[in-house]
Every structure is written in structure tokens, then in C-alpha cells.
């Protein structure tokens, strides 16, 4: 079981590290970094499940019979694009927040909002 699943367990740890950064850190850029670690770890999870022992990359060539599963690769190609799109938009928001609030720390922004109300 250890040899069969250690891969997934490490991936879970990675995901959770990313998730922790997202929810526990107050810095907006750091949150986006966390988000991207979280997403990258999910990609690693998908790609891990596509691997077949003794298989090679799913590009047809003579003399090879065993290929890894191409479908998760396709899904993750799409997901990577989604990830960069989210990152770009999040960073754009962070820049605007810095310009209008003068800070990118969650607590300060919240404080300023409370003053406004």
C-alpha cells in the first residue's frame, strides 16, 4: 500500500500546503501564490493517475505497445490554461486594490472598509 499510494499522499500534502497558504495568509499576492500551488498539485494528481507502469508518452511510435493514458493530459492542459487565467485576473485585482486602498494586506483593507461604513 505504501508503494502504491505514496504518490497520492504526497500530492495531498502539497494540495493542503497550497490551501493553507490561501486561507491563512493575509497578503493578496501570497494568496494567489497559494492558489497556484493548490492548482498545480491538483494537476500533479491528475497526471499521476494517468501513468501506467512501463508505459511511455502517448505519442505513437513504432515498437511501443504500452502508452500512458492521454485523457488526463488533455484535461490538465485545459486546467493549466484556466489556472493562468485566474492568476492573471487575481493579480490585476491585487494591483487595483493596491492603487485604491494603498495596501495588499487583508486586515488593513478590512479596516479601511469598516471605516468607510
Amino acid at each position, binding site marked *: 500500500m505504501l508503494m*502504491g499510494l*505514496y*504518490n*497520492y499522499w*504526497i500530492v*495531498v*500534502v*502539497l*494540495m*493542503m*500546503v497550497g*490551501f*493553507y*497558504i490561501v*486561507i*491563512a*495568509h*493575509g497578503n*493578496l*499576492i*501570497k494568496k494567489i*501564490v497559494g492558489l497556484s*500551488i493548490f492548482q498545480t498539485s491538483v*494537476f*500533479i494528481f491528475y*497526471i*499521476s493517475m*494517468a*501513468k*501506467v*507502469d512501463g*508505459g511511455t*508518452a*502517448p*505519442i*505513437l511510435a513504432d515498437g511501443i505497445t504500452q*502508452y*500512458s*493514458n*492521454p485523457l488526463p*493530459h*488533455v484535461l*490538465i*492542459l*485545459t486546467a*493549466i*490554461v484556466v*489556472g*493562468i487565467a485566474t*492568476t*492573471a*485576473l487575481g*493579480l*490585476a485585482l*491585487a*494591483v*487595483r486594490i*493596491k492603487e485604491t*486602498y494603498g495596501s495588499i*494586506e487583508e486586515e488593513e483593507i478590512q479596516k479601511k472598509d469598516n471605516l468607510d461604513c
Partner: protein
Amino acid sequence: MESLIDIVLLAFLVGIAFAIVWMKDLLAVIMLLGIYGLLSASFFVAMDAVDVAFTEASVGAGISTLLMLVTIAMTGRSEHPVRHKPFLALAVVIITGSLLIYGTLDMPYFGSAQAPVHQHVAPRYINDSIEEVGVPNIVTSVLASYRAFDTFGEVVVIFTAGMGVLALLSVVRRPKNTTGDKARDIAKIDLINDSMHEQHLVLRIVTKMLIPFIFLYAFYVQFHGDYGPGGGFQAGVIFASAIFLYAMLFGMSTARRVINQSFIQLLAAIGVLLYGSVGVVSLLNGKNFFDYSALSVDPIAGQHLGILLIELGVGCTVASVMVIIFFSFADRKDNGQNLESNGIENNLKENNKK
């Protein structure tokens, strides 16, 4: 040997992830994130996912790192040391993590060829795609033909991001009304910005020599996607990164002169439309949306033509959207210094009022 590489790479990933949690200097965090991207891409190579590795390397390690660098140049590098509710967060994370670990217990073992994943849908792709689509790279044939609609969605996602960033960051260029101190400040900032490309003569020459080859390579990746790793998305990113390189070394204003904003926006739209119109043509020919066999008398030739066209559409949109995004950020940074000081002044005023 393979599992050793696998374990070592995963250990690296864990180490870097934890280092990112502890570090306060955002610049260091972002550089580590770049390493994280490179490492996960290497891991993808070890897992046979060459196309994914290609994309992750250019996106995860390249583009997103670059965007974050520009951002922290605007927002500042150090992180507030205080965390809010770390224990609550830790509890949430531990619960989620243990649920996932619990879920892994019944999973088919890693690499097992008997896993359901390799039994149901995938075998048809592996065995029949060469007759049905006629492209040796199975990933390309699944991406561009079997699941073409997902990829269309992907292109639209990137287009959406481009439009979103434009809506948020596009700067209306006004004549600078600069007087006194501020003018001197801006002049100083311009000086610092320019200093990079005046001093690094070596860099500029090497880059000038390199850029045509990068473009050439981008075209190779674009059209070689059927036979090896690569395709429209990767090619678009490489193409865009050559332009980034140019913009970084020769200044934004020079790059702007080469690339016109409204032209590049239209190019992004044209890419999406090119992709979609392939589907529309097959609709008009009486077949289902994205059924490429409607494009030509010979179904395989139709598939080839369809894949070629949609990859072009993808490359076009991706390259132009990446350029749009990067230019929006970089412009904001160059014009931002005065904008930002205004913002801070406004904040001060507001605070004083209270």
C-alpha cells in the same frame, strides 16, 4: 530508477512548498514558485505527460512568474508577518487533507494498468485514434478532435482573462501634467527604467540575435504539434514570451510602437472566431459542430485540416492575449508610479477626514 526520480522530485516539491509558506519576502516566494513550476513540469515529464510538461514549463514557470514579478514591483515585496486565524485554517486544512487521504485508500495503485482509468474510455483513443483522426500525437487528437469543445472553452477562458485584465487595468493615456517635484520623480523613475536597457549592452545584443530564433521555434512548435509535444497553446506562449523579452529589454514604449493595442485585441478575437468558425462550417455542411470530417471529402484529410485550423486559432488567441495581459501590467507599472502616489495621497486625505 524511475520511481527514484519520482520520489526525489516529489520531495523537492514538498520542500519548496513548505519554504514558500514560511518565507516573508515575496520576491523570494515568487522565485521559489518558478522553481515549483519547473519541478512539477519535470515531474510531468517523468510521468510521460510531455505536452503538459511543455505547457506547465512555459506557463507555470514562465508567464505566471513574470506576471507576479511585475505585480510585486507595483505592490511591494514584504509580507505582513501576522496571520489571521492560523489555527482555524490549520483545522480546515487538516480535515480536508484527511478526507482526501481517506479517499486515496481505495484508489487503484499508482501505475497499475488495471485501473479503471485505463480501461474504459482511454483504450479507444490509444488504439483507434490513428485511424479515426490520423495524428500520431494522441494528446493532440483528443484535445483537438474528440474533446475539441473543451479546448474551445479553454480558448474562451483565456480570451475572458484578457478582456477582464483589460477592463481592470487598461490605462487611458493622458498627457502628463507634471510639475515640480513630481516631474522630477517621474523623470527619475524613467531614468531607472531606462537604465536597464542602456547598461546591458550584452543582453540586448544577445536578445536581438535570439528573438528571431524564438519566433522560428514557436512556428515549429505550432506546426509540429501533430507529431510531437506542442501545439497552438505552447506556441502562442513561446511567441508571446519573445515579445516579453523584447519589451523588457527595450522598454515598453518601443514595444508599443511595434505592437498596436487595438490590433492585438482584434487578433485575440480573430483567434477565437477562427476556432469557432471551423465548427460553424461543419454545421453548415450538415454535420455536428466541430465534426471535421465535414471539411473535406476524405474524413482524415478533414480532420487534419480542422486540427491545423483550430491550432492556429488557439495560437493566435493565446499569443495575443498573453501580450495583452503582460502589456497591461507593464503599462500600469510604468504609468502607475504617479497613479499610485495619487492613490496613497487620497488615502491619507480620507484617513485625515476621519
